[in-house]
C-alpha cells in the first residue's frame, strides 16, 4: 500500500494541432475527420500526478468518462503518469452529459479506485468545452477541498497537508501567486503553466525509473484498464447523461473575425537591394521609435 493515493480525471479531446484538425464548411468541428488524443490540460494533470509518484511513490489511478475509444487517452495519460490503474466509464446512458452529470460519474468512479484517494487532479479546462466546471463540480460532489490554478504543490506526508501555489491572473492587475495549504483529501485543478521540477539526484533517478516503468506499462495498458458501465458503477440514472444535465447547449455562434487593418508587402529574395528595401520599410513604419 502506498502512503499517498492519487487519481487523475482526464478527457479525450480533438487534436487541435495543425494538420490534425478538420472543420466542416460551416466552421464547426468535423469530429469524424479529427483525430482524438489526450487533452493538453489532461496531460498537464497527468504530469502533476507523476510528480507525486516520483517524490512520494504515490499510487496513481487515471479515470475518464467517454466512448470506448477513450482508452487511448488513458494510455497516453499512463505514459505520462506511470498509472497503476486506469478507469474508463463508458455507457450510452452517459451521452449528452453536461459538466454536472459528468462530475457525478467521475465522483462515483473515485470510490471505485483502489485505496482511499488523497488527491484528485484535473486539467484546467477542456480544449473542446472550455467551461472549467467539471473539476470544481467533482470536488464539490466528493466533498474535497478544491484548489484551482495550481502551479506547484508539495505534500507534507507527516501532517498530511498539501501546500500549493496558485497563480491568480486578473485582468488589469499583476499576476499574483498565492500560497495555500489544505489537509488531504483535496481536488487540484492544475494550471496549464505547471511544470514539475526534480531538484535532487534521487528524484532524477526515481524519475528515470518510473518513466521507464511507464513506457512498459503503457505498452500493455489494457492490463491496467477497468471499464465500467453505468450499472457496474452504480450511478443514479437520474443524475447522469442527459437527464442529469441541467444545461443544454442550444446554439453555437461563430465569433465574427475582426477586420484586419494591416497591409502586407512581400519582398522576395536576399540580394542587398531587396534587403535594403525591407530595412527601409521597417524604419519607415517604426517612424518615431528610436532604435540604436
Amino acid at each position, binding site marked *: 500500500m502506498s502512503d499517498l493515493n492519487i487519481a487523475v480525471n482526464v478527457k479525450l479531446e480533438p487534436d487541435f494541432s495543425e494538420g490534425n484538425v478538420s472543420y466542416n464548411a460551416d466552421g464547426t468541428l468535423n469530429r469524424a475527420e479529427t483525430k482524438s488524443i489526450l487533452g493538453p490540460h489532461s496531460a498537464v494533470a497527468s504530469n502533476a500526478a507523476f510528480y507525486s509518484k516520483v517524490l512520494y511513490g504515490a499510487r496513481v489511478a487515471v479515470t475518464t468518462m467517454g466512448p470506448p475509444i477513450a482508452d487511448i487517452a488513458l494510455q497516453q495519460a499512463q505514459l505520462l503518469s506511470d498509472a497503476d490503474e486506469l478507469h474508463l466509464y463508458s455507457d450510452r446512458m452517459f451521452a449528452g452529459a453536461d459538466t454536472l452529470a459528468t462530475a457525478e460519474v467521475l465522483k462515483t468512479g473515485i470510490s471505485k479506485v483502489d485505496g482511499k484517494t488523497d488527491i484528485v487532479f484535473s486539467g484546467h479546462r477542456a480544449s473542446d468545452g472550455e467551461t472549467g466546471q467539471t473539476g470544481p463540480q467533482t470536488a464539490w460532489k466528493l466533498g474535497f477541498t478544491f484548489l484551482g490554478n495550481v502551479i506547484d504543490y508539495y505534500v507534507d506526508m507527516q501532517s498530511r497537508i498539501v501546500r500549493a501555489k496558485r497563480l491568480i491572473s486578473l485582468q488589469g492587475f499583476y499576476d499574483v501567486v498565492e500560497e495555500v495549504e489544505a489537509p488531504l483529501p483535496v481536488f487540484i485543478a492544475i494550471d496549464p503553466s505547471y511544470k514539475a521540477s526534480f*531538484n*535532487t*539526484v*534521487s528524484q*532524477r*533517478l526515481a524519475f*528515470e*525509473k518510473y518513466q521507464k516503468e511507464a513506457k512498459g506499462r503503457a505498452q500493455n495498458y489494457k492490463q491496467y484498464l477497468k471499464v465500467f458501465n453505468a450499472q457496474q458503477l452504480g450511478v443514479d440514472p437520474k443524475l447522469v447523461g442527459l437527464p442529469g444535465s441541467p444545461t443544454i447547449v442550444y446554439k453555437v455562434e461563430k465569433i465574427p473575425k475582426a477586420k484586419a487593418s494591416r497591409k502586407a508587402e512581400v519582398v*522576395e529574395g536576399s540580394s542587398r537591394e531587396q534587403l535594403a528595401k525591407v530595412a527601409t520599410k521597417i524604419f519607415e513604419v517604426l517612424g518615431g521609435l528610436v532604435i540604436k
Partner: protein
Amino acid sequence: MMESYEVAIIGGGSAGLAALKQLSNLGKQAILIEAGKQVGTKNISGGILYSKKPRNGRVHNVEDVYPEFLQDAPIERKITQYMLHSTSRNKVFTLNLTAAHEYQANFGYSVLLNRLTAWFAKQAGESAEKQGGGIVSGVHVKSLSWPGEKTVIETDELDPFEAKAVIAADGVNSEVAAMTGARTKFTPEQLYQGVKVIVKLPEEIIEERFGVGTDEGAAHLFAGDVTLNHIGGGFAYTNRDTLSVGAVYHYDSLMTRPTEPSTLVNALLKNPMVAEFVKDEVAVKMEINKDLPKEEQLRVRFATSKLIKTWNELRDAWYSPSGRKRLVEAGKFKTEAEIKSRIDYVQNELTSKYSTRFVTDYVELEYGAKLVPDGKRCAMKKPFHKNVLFIGDAAGRGVFIGPRIEGLNVGIDDAVRAANAVARAIDRNNFGPQYMGEYYSQMIEDSPYTRDMREIDKDYLKIFLDAAKDVPKDIIGQRYGMLFRLMSSGTLRGLAVGFANILGYDKLLPLVESEDTYVQVPVELAEKMGRSMTAMYEPTLPTVAQRVARLKYDDDRASHIKVLNPNSEFMKKMVVLCPTNCYSIEGGEVILQHEACIECGTCAKETEWHHPRGEKGIVYQYG
C-alpha cells in the same frame, strides 16, 4: 540534509559509462552526471573503437565491460582494410597498413558515438539501477568542494549532493580538471583538432566501392597535399550506411598558419580519390517558377519534396539486404524487384513532371569537431586529485602514433582501472589520496597504453617499415637515410629504438611529427610513385553556415564562453580556427556569437570556457 552517494562519475561518454558499468558489475552504487539531455548527444569521435591484446600486460576491453557488445551493440563495420595514401594533386601512392591496424588487436570497429553511447548508457544504466545508482542526464556540474572528507558537488540544475569518490570523465575540456587544479588547460602543442563530416552512402554501394563484405569495412588515411601543409592527416572510414570523413591536425601547426577547419575537410573531399569515395546519385530540385499561382507553387514544392523523400528512402532500402527484406515482409511490396521498379517510377515522375535532375554529388549529414589530447604529450602524470580520479580524454590519454589512432579503448581501459580503485576504496572505506589515488595512478602506470604513450614499440615499427619496404630509399633517404637504414635491419632496429627511447619521445617527436613526415615526403612519394586518379565530378561543398544550419541545438541564451582578452593574438586566430565561425572581428576586437558553438574547446585556452548548462547546446545525431 544533503544527499550522499558512494561515487559520482562526471561525464557520460564511453569512458564515464564504462566506469559506471564496471562499478555496478562490482556491486557498487554509482551515479553518473551527464550534461546532454540524452546521453550520447555530446559525443563525437573519429571513430574506430579497438579491442586490444598487448603482448605484455593486459588491457580492459569494451567487450569485457559489456559482454553483449559484439552481439548487440550498434557498431558499424569491422575494419578489415587499413590504407595510408600519400597525395599530391591527382596522384596517390598507397601503403597497405592492415597489418599495423591488426597489430595486437582483437578487432577494430567503425562506430558512430551517438547511437553507441546511447547503447552503453542503457546497459550501464540498468546495471547501476540494481545497485541504487543510475544516470542523471541534463545536469551540468559547476563546482566541487571539500568541506569535509566528502566532495560536495554543485550543479546548475540540482540541489548540491556529496560523494565519497569522484571519477572525472568530462572530456578533453575537463572542467573538473580546471576546478580542482589537477592540471592546467592543454596547450596547442598537446592537442589535435579534429573535424569530421558524416556522408550518406547506401550500404551495398559502400561494400562495392570499398571492396568489403557485409559487416566489413575499410579505413583510409591521407597525408600529403590534402593537409594543406599541416601536420596531421585526413581519414575516411566506412560505417554501415554512412562514411566518416575528417581531418585531424596538430593544433600548434594550425596556430602557426591558421586554416579554417572546414577548409581542411574540404581539401580532403576535393581530393579525387575521396571525391570518388563519397559520390552518390543526388536529386536536385528545380527552381520553382515564381510566375505560377501561389497555390500551384506550394503544390509543386510539397510534391517534389515528398517524392524525393520517398525516392531516398526506397533507394536506401534497396541497397540494403535488411532494408529490402523489411519492405517485403511489411507487405509494402510483393517482391524485391517491385521496389526497384517503384524507385524507377518515382525517379521518372520527378524527372518528367517536376523537372528534378539527378546528378553525381555527395550528401553531407553532419559536421562536427573535437579536440584530441595527444597522450604522448599530455597524459596526466598524476591522474588524480584528492578523491577525484581522471580518465580518458579528461586525463589527456590517447595513443596517437603515426597511423595508430586510439582514444576510445584507452578511455574504457582507464575507466575500469578507476572503477576498480574506487571499489577497493569503498571496501576499506578509505578514499584518501594514498589509498585510492596513488593506487589508481599505479594501475595507470601499469597500463600497456601508458607504455605506448611513452616508448617506441619496435615491433609496431617493423610492421610499418615492412609495409613501406618498396618505397625507394632515395625519397626517404634524403631526410631519414640514417634512421631508415638502422630501422630496416633487424638487429640494429633494436639498438636504434633503444637509443631513441633513451632520448625520449619529447626530443624525438618534433623530428618525427614534422611537415617533412606528413607533407613533403608523402607529396614526393605521390609525385614519383603515385597513380593518377580523376574524379568524374566536382563535389558541391557546403559553406560553414550551411553546415551549421543542418546541426541541431538546444539554444541557451546565456553564453557558456567568455572572451577574456578580445585583442589577444590567440583570440584573433580563433576567428579562423573556430570550426563553426563563432568568432568575428568588429572594430579591431574579437567578438563571440556562441549560438553555433559545437563545444569543441578550440578557443578554451584563452577564454573562460564552460560546457553549456544541462540539456543546452549541440545535439549531435551521429557523433
